[in-house]
């Protein structure tokens, strides 16, 4: 299932946040969205996930979601959004219960996603007992449990320290390599974008427009920590963004 954004524009009252966004998110690819603060990245992701409606344009699903998919568009939040009163197991079973999946069927799915995110030993732990990186892995496990067609990630690693971030990026690459998934990945961090993105979409400052779409051909599994090829991409992206970021930063002063 592909996602197509068709002329998306939006304004909060008279405050225009984005204009004319056309974008194709093909199956099996990770599309990273970068842009200066306040350019509408989170808003765009909410449009894609159907949590908010754009004033102009449409978000289209092209083709049917794959068989067995319980929740085609599935979020992973920056602040994890785990229920603190449920265990790791309970947090994952939460999203299955409404689909009538309980008992042995639920156990199969939960065991599988916990194994894939290396959390099998923590099924009975409460969120307060987990580190930030583990909490985000629980959130990823929960997202995997509903077999999403597209994962929508809003700065999923921003709340984590840089070492944990590296580890989780490796985990995401592993997951993708074993079973390619489609994702829209919003981030501030250009290193994350070039590490995980098949395409990197650069947005201009508010009102957000697409400035450039950079395609990175190197296979995910071949990309490494401080890879010189990636560094070049990262430098190019930074050149694209620098003026925008500076202008956006100056703009906030008089808003």
């Amino acid at each position: 299932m592909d996602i197509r954004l068709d002329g998306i524009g939006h304004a909060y009252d008279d405050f225009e946040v984005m204009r004319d966004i056309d974008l194709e998110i093909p199956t099996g690819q990770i599309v990273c969205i970068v842009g200066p603060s306040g350019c509408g990245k989170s808003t765009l992701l909410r449009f894609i996930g159907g949590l908010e409606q754009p004033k102009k344009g449409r978000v289209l699903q092209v083709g049917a979601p794959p068989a067995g998919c319980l929740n085609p568009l599935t979020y992973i939040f920056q602040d994890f959004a785990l229920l603190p009163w449920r265990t790791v197991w309970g947090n994952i079973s939460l999203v299955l219960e409404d689909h009538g999946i309980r008992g042995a069927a639920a156990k199969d799915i939960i065991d599988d996603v916990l194994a894939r995110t290396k959390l099998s030993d923590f099924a009975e732990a409460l969120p307060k007992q987990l580190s930030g990186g583990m909490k985000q892995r629980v959130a990823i496990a929960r997202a995997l449990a509903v077999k999403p067609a597209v994962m929508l990630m809003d700065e999923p690693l921003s709340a984590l320290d840089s070492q944990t971030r590296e580890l989780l990026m490796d985990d995401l690459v592993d997951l993708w390599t074993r079973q390619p998934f489609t994702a829209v990945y919003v981030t501030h961090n250009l290193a994350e974008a070039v590490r995980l993105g098949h395409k990197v979409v650069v947005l201009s400052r508010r009102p957000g427009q697409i400035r450039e779409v950079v395609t990175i051909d190197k296979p995910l599994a071949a990309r490494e920590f401080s890879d010189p090829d990636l560094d070049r991409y990262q430098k190019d992206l930074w050149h694209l963004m620098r003026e925008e970021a500076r202008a956006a930063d100056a703009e906030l002063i008089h808003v």
Partner: protein
Amino acid sequence: MSESSAKPVSFRGGGFAPRSVRWIGVTVFVALILIAEWGTRSGWISALTLPKPSDVLDTFRELYESGLLFKHLGPSLSRLIVGAAIGASVGISVGVLIGLFSYIRSGLVPLVAAIFPIPKIALLPLFVIWFGIGEGSKYALIAFGTFTPTVVATYGAVDNVDRTLIRMGQSFGLSWWSIVRKIVLPGAMPGILSGLRISLAIAIILLVAAEMLGAQYGIGAYILEAGSLYDLERLFAGVLILSLLGVIVSAVIGLIERRLLRWRI
């Protein structure tokens, strides 16, 4: 830097984290009672000011041995339980509705604000007309008194539930009812329980008020009778029962909190 100018950094953290220390509560009670006992015995507290704690205890024992204690306690407890259960459950339901729906919120918040400051005791005659002189008016008074603080605590607690958790529920396609049951209610539980502490104390206060009118048996009736005779020992024995009731209710809520809110940091 020379060794002589080195001194340890003075500690200035700590504090602001009260814990409950075992036995301190009991010690405070015992100390106060011992002071009263000593004062009444040695005479610097006159017998008219305060009865001797040991006499109060004797009265209490007599009450227990004559079987009158349970004759008074039984009806009181059933009034308290029925009234508070009605008031708290309606209060929690209405509070959740106010927390979830704009129209109900706009319609009921001013109404609740208008009802809250009315001393419910003043409405007792009205309840007697509506529900009769029997148990009905007593249940109604207690229920009404517990209802308002429960509503206010509940909708405040629902307002404080983390919105990102609710968005998360929606983004996974959970049904409205599942979101309410599995996200809103557990998230509001800490606030609801601390509201219940207050509501149930108010229920005990209103229990006595209700029983002062047309009840043959009940702790309130007992206290009222003792009071009109200036029988301080029996008055205090009655008050002792109420205090014990308050301590038990608070302990039960503490127990529920520890069980239900283990997930809190």
